[in-house]
């Protein structure tokens, strides 16, 4: 038994906090559409941490170093996740954020359902969109209450999908992870890139392709308009590919979706989305930027492979339907009428409308967004 009362007090305090978080989450009815599976996973996680703390007590010695390690590496993430969940719950109840939060949940629920993964995600806020693996939290950007940023949530969901999407008939297989690992190794071998960085970047590319595959041009339009950095077009970071590479991969992904389409009309619709909608918008906003020939070929090959992964392993309904009349829907939303349409259709209608009306004043944009968010909030995913 530990004789150091200070150490014991601090460990017990940590255990009490874990129990408190568990109780808070179980008491909270505002978890929205989150399934019991996610709650259970959270509970298991909390109990695991509690057990680790209890082992410290059982060890007998006051192992301050181990406690610090646990705090920094294991407990902080769980606390942050719990805080995120509770923030999200509070935000959902706030009149200003209730609509957009409900709309975001509809978008994510729809995507999860169409992807066929048996796992829901938790939604919270942060200074920017991101995915937290600990318990699968997607953070939406605070204080955005408009429809415009919602497509970017699909990218964050893509990070979760990469680790959970199984192969047909092989529930334990993770084809995306396998592809990313193999491709990263090859990239490292052929270009001299750091394997870990290559892997991170390929994960980002998969998340981009996933969002594009599921949401069509709405995602690239949103991300290039709201997030791409003009001063960092060609600069890759240790975790992210350059914007130019990301954008070309998305364009190639849409083209590849056209190749997979059964009807030439729908194939043409995808081609137009890529060549007439997204690419000119990208060039207009950031200038005409191309990859060198080798990088362009790589972008095409990787986009093709990533689209094929989704085509093979996800239900067909995950693919954004190029036949959707998003322009017509956009006109009706602009006229102020709420529409019962699929979330992906509403997001595309919104971004197509915004792209076609670059001179729209902020008030008109706000009104459009309001109608779109209301439509998303009320539609059954």
């Amino acid at each position, binding site marked *: 038994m530990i004789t150091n009362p200070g150490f014991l007090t601090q460990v017990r305090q940590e255990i009490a906090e874990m129990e408190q978080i568990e109780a808070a989450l179980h008491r909270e009815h505002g978890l929205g559409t989150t399934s019991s599976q996610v709650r259970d996973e959270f509970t298991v996680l909390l109990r695991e941490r509690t057990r680790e703390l209890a082992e410290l007590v059982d060890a007998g010695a006051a192992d301050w170093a181990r406690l610090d390690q646990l705090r920094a590496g294991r407990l902080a993430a769980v606390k942050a996740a719990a805080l995120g969940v509770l923030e999200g719950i509070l935000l959902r109840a706030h009149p200003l954020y209730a609509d957009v939060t409900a709309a975001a949940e509809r978008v994510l629920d729809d995507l999860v359902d169409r992807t066929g993964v048996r796992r829901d995600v938790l939604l919270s806020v942060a200074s920017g969109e991101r995915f937290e693996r600990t318990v699968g939290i997607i953070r939406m950007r605070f204080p955005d209450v408009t429809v415009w940023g919602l497509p970017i949530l699909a990218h964050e969901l893509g990070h979760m999908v990469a680790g959970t999407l199984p192969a047909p008939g092989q529930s334990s297989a993770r084809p995306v992870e396998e592809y990313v690992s193999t491709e990263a190794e090859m990239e490292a071998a052929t270009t001299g890139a750091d394997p870990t960085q290559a892997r991170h970047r390929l994960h980002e590319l998969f998340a981009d392709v996933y969002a594009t595959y599921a949401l069509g041009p709405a995602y690239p339009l949103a991300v290039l308009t709201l997030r791409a950095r003009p001063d960092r077009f060609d600069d890759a970071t240790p975790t992210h590919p350059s914007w130019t590479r990301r954008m070309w991969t998305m364009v190639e992904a849409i083209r590849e979706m056209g190749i997979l389409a059964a*009807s*030439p*009309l*729908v*194939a*043409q*619709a995808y*081609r*137009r*989305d890529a060549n*007439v*909608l997204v690419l000119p918008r990208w060039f207009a906003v950031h200038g005409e930027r191309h990859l060198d020939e080798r990088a362009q070929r790589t972008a095409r090959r990787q986009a093709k492979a990533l689209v094929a992964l989704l085509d093979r392993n996800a239900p067909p309904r995950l693919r954004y339907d*190029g*036949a*959707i*009349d*998003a*322009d*017509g829907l956009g*006109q*009706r939303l602009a006229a102020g009428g709420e529409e019962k349409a699929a979330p992906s259709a509403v997001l*595309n209608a919104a971004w*197509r409308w915004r792209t076609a009306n670059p001179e729209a004043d902020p008030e008109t944009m706000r009104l459009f967004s309001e109608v779109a968010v209301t439509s998303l909030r009320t539609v059954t995913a």
Partner: protein
Amino acid sequence: MPPPPDLLVIRLDELQEDIEEVQQVVAKAETRHERLKVLREAGEYAAERLKTARRQANDAALDAEGTPFHHAMEALSGTLREVAAKIRHINDTVADIDRAMIHLREAEDINNRCGQILDDIRDIRSRVRGGEVSYADAWAAFDELSDTRCRMLFSDYVDLLGGLTLRDTGLDDQISGMADDLLHELGTELLALPARPAEASAADPASLGSLIKLWFPEWTIWGVPLFGYDAGLAWVSRRSPLGAQLLDAEPAGSRGCLVADAYATFALGPAYASAAILLRMRTPAAGDPAVSPSEAGRAHVILRVLRALGQSGTFGGLGGLVEECWQEAVRQRGGVTEPANRDALDRFADRAVDILDKVTTLRRFDSQLWESEALETLNTLRLTEPGGPQPATVRGLLNGAWAARLEKPDNRAYVNRIGIKAKNLWTPHNGGGAGEKWPGGSIQSPRKPSYGTTFLARG
């Protein structure tokens, strides 16, 4: 020795006779309704009398039961039943012909033209005789009359009679009826008439009044959207303030062609773009003489108006296929798709959409109308089994059909099947003659050359 016969007088007399013949035949053409009416009334009378006879024969057969006449009376009843079936068939056929037969409101137009030519013939004759003009000038006037106005009149006359016969007999496969319905949807009182191909028909179609020529061999469903162009010309000819604004906005030298193209694309969407660009437009080649408006310019306006109506989904996909097909064809011929006056054409197309949106009698065929009117037809046509729900509008049918066609444009058997199936989905509304069904103040006939003549002849 008597003077030699005056050849000019002989020619003038001959010409006068020809013109009078045209007048008579056109007048006779209208009597076909009278002849049909006699036939219809005779058929109705026969059917009525036969009903009485059958009733009497039945009564007589009952009365004759048990007598030696009973068998003979029953045989008579059976024969009368067969005759009644034949009479019913005849009456149905007459009703079909009656439905297909249009009233010739243009008789007056042609009579007026004949009257003017006859006046000119008499004028030449009297002025020669009175010595007011020299023989040389009189021959020149005769040549002008004979080679231009009379030739045009005779050409129209042949087209008119041939077209009427084709319509009346249903040999046009009822495409004219479908075109009539389309023109009616577009708010015009124009009617379609099968006619000779463009190369042989150089006449000014305006002389046919409210009839628009449906060129052979385009008596198929695929050519029907081209009538949107004529409806556009008719709209402009009404001289409405909006029509005048649009004509003012047209680049110089376009002669209303671009207005008509914009109108037709606005009203019919991808169906017009497909028919006009894929069937009719001559792909520009390198070194083509400059004409205004150029085919490239017209295609540019059509495609820009189409893009303004929607670019997403299958609507946008169809427009994109037409655009790609056109650009590839132009590239193959070594021409340029980009018209020289692109900026002016862009301004015109954008202005056209703005103005046409204000025309209260016209609804834009945009992606929303596509969803509600064409998509179901497209899905029906994709199925191999025949039949399906009748489309709500001809424009919806035409758009659905063109979309289905362009899904497999290289498969001739498929395209034929789609064309037949699409045509069978439509029942023309042209009951009792178009002129009777759609009465009212006739709009002015197109003042510009109608669709066909504004295109360069093939070959």
